[in-house]
């Protein structure tokens, strides 16, 4: 009966858990940005922090990197996904690609970035495989491919990681609207498969996926771990610079960091506005394009090109994981050999204690945070069900807000705030910080299946005399076991992949697989990176396997739940 007292408070608690740290963090950023930092004996207000950050010579370049990387990678990933879905959805090729990309969604960004780096670097796997027979190289070229000053490799890393995300989001949106008939009609009117889809289905789909696309843009502009691994160094991206300033032992550097964080926030807001204006422009040209009635002469070529790009990104992630695996077992591996001279367990043994510790820390944080997120999410959805409420568009914005505000804009402030009030950094605050990002994803993952559940089941159970709590525990949750476990796996994958919240809110003392892996980036020990990158991927992927197998075993004699 406890749940009856607790249940009505869960929506408010969920909002607090999701938005509280964001708002507190932004507050904690604004204060030092204007020179107010009691912990360092400074009281504002003053504009000095902004003067100092504006005086930094790297600023224009860092700002430009944030903008260019964000726009180019998001546009590329989005265009590829839209064209692949337009040209191929419903075909067998598409199902193969979808099957290949779905598991790659949960590969952590850092692991994917390391994998890509190990593929395309001058001494990477690709160069080794084609050398020296094709190239004549017997030593790696002196070329800055990874961490190039234009951020091209960083964009590539983001594109291959965002394609699976955008694809699954698009497919989820397609499931909610009746696209088949309008697509069929457009084809009957003589439109090519791809052009017909773009002209009839795409506008509806885009309405549904607009917010996730914004999330991708904001993320790409402010990501730290991918930028540390693949991004340029001199100067680094703005977000990496913020983290550098935050980790400076000199506390006054935090003022500059806070000012830079506000610059980063302004950049993202600016970019979102530009994107929105772009949407209107595209819609206007789109309407004219539709009105002109062109049937899509180039459909086959464009479709094939998009498919090639989509497949390439899947292959790049998969090969990247493969090369991480090879490095983790590599003994001596000279250039340009395609494979190491011998395979050994020595790397794994050498890092076994570090791996164990990091794995335990990672798992503890991820499991606790995910359980809390599931509890809050199920509570919210159950309140919604019992009181017949519907979440409005504005409610969806709230859900996406923590994902739209750049991490580098509010996490430094949150850390400073914790410092100011004398609260300890460490595991518990890290869990709260992870919850901010885990909750929206768990909610988004579970809400559709939860709402799609046939409510007549609950009517029948109530008519049989079951109380609302009994209906929830004995009927609804068991029937939704698979989506609940899937949402749990999503939550764990999100938590495992978190770099910045763990680093900043943990004060450097909470060492997860992700922070350990990214910390190795500057050292260039490929074997250690292989070991940690692979473990990080495993920690994110294994829960999905569990979510797949547990319902299959528990409900092995229940055919009615096979596809549930």
């Amino acid at each position: 009966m406890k749940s009856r007292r607790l249940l009505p408070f869960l929506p408010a608690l969920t909002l607090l858990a999701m938005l509280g740290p964001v708002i507190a963090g932004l507050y904690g950023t604004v204060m030092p940005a204007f020179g107010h930092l009691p912990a360092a004996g400074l009281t504002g207000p003053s504009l000095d922090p902004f003067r100092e950050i504006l005086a930094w010579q790297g600023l224009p370049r860092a700002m430009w990197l944030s903008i260019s990387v964000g726009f180019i990678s998001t546009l590329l990933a989005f265009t590829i996904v839209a064209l692949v879905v337009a040209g191929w959805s419903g075909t067998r090729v598409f199902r193969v690609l979808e099957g290949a990309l779905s598991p790659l969604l949960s590969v952590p960004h850092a692991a994917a970035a390391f994998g890509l780096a190990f593929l395309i670097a001058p001494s990477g796997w690709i160069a080794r495989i084609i050398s020296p027979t094709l190239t004549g190289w017997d030593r790696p070229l002196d070329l800055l491919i990874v961490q190039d000053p234009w951020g091209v490799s960083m964009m590539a890393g983001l594109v291959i990681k965002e394609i699976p995300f955008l694809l699954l989001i698009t497919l989820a949106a397609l499931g909610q609207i009746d696209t088949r008939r309008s697509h069929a009609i457009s084809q009957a009117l003589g439109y090519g498969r791809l052009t017909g889809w773009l002209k009839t289905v795409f506008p509806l789909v885009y309405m549904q996926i607009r917010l996730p696309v914004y999330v991708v843009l904001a993320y790409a502009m402010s990501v730290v771990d991918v930028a540390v691994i693949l991004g340029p160094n001199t100067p680094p991206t703005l977000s990496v610079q913020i983290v550098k300033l935050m980790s400076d032992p000199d506390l006054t550097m935090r003022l500059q960091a806070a000012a830079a964080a506000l610059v980063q926030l302004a950049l993202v807001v600016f970019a979102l506005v530009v994107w929105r204006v772009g949407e209107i422009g595209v819609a206007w040209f789109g309407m004219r394009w539709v009105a002109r009635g062109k049937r899509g002469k180039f459909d086959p070529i464009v479709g094939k090109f998009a498919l090639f790009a989509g497949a390439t990104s899947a292959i790049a992630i998969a090969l990247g994981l493969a090369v991480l695996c090879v490095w983790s077992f590599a003994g001596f591996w000279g250039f340009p050999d395609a494979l190491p001279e011998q395979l050994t367990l020595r790397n794994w043994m050498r890092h076994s204690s570090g791996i164990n510790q990091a794995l335990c820390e990672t798992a503890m944080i991820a499991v606790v945070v995910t359980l809390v997120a599931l509890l809050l999410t199920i509570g919210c959805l159950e309140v919604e069900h019992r009181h017949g409420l519907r979440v409005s568009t504005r409610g969806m914005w709230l859900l996406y807000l923590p994902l739209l505000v750049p991490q580098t804009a509010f996490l430094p402030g949150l850390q400073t705030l914790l410092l100011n009030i004398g609260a300890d950094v460490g595991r518990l605050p890290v869990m709260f910080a992870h919850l901010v990002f885990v909750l929206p994803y768990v909610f988004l993952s579970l809400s559709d299946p939860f709402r799609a559940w046939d409510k007549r089941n609950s009517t029948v159970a109530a008519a049989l005399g079951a109380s609302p709590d009994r209906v929830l525990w004995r009927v609804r949750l068991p029937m939704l076991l698979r989506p609940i476990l899937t949402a749990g796996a999503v939550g764990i994958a999100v938590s495992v992949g978190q770099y910045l919240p763990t680093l900043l809110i943990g004060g450097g003392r909470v060492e997860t697989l992700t922070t350990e892996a990214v910390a190795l980036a500057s050292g260039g020990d490929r074997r250690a990176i292989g070991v940690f990158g692979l473990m990080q991927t495993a920690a994110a992927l294994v829960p999905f396997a569990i979510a797949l197998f547990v319902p299959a075993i528990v409900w092995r004699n229940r055919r009615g739940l096979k596809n549930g």
Partner: protein
Amino acid sequence: MDNGLELRDVRITKDGAPLLEVSRAVSSGEVLTIMGPSGVGKSTLLAFVTGTLSSSFEVTGGVFLNGEDITDAPPHQRRVGILFQDDLLFPHLSVGQNLAFGLQAGGSAASRRDRVVAALSEVGLEGYADRDPATLSGGQKARVALMRMLLSEPCALLLDEPFSRLDAALRAQVRDLVFARARARSLPVLMVTHDKEDASAAGGEIVTLTPI
């Protein structure tokens, strides 16, 4: 009326627009059939009686069961059973567990099992207790759904197009069974349907709702 189900001056509106009006009583062992085109609010009326009507509807009037006003009682305390056109057997429970779910709490494990077994044999499904409901035929599922509802000892039975998914041969058979079991337990039955055959087979009063 002290014995049976009564809809007293029920008037349902949605967003200010009137949807339906009905004031009728059905006594124990009788069937009241409500007919009307789709969209007229037949299922809405049943949702009102089960207590699961969405809050976007406004209702005046009340439901009385054996003289007791249940208009504001929570759904699980109304003792009003319902059968839908789909069997809605819980897919994660075996046939026996589905039946036991309906059984009122209390009694020893052995006596509960006995009642489940007896209920199965009442509808000719001896030995089906451990079966996965998904492996049953449509007629068998309908019979299990009926017995599950009856085991919960309802004081009234609602039928929401209950036979429309069954093929013609099975339909008459299941329909006769449902009405016979309900009559044997002296239950007032409220059925909504758009099928004339169902309505005449019920043998009771027929109310035709028209859009208002």
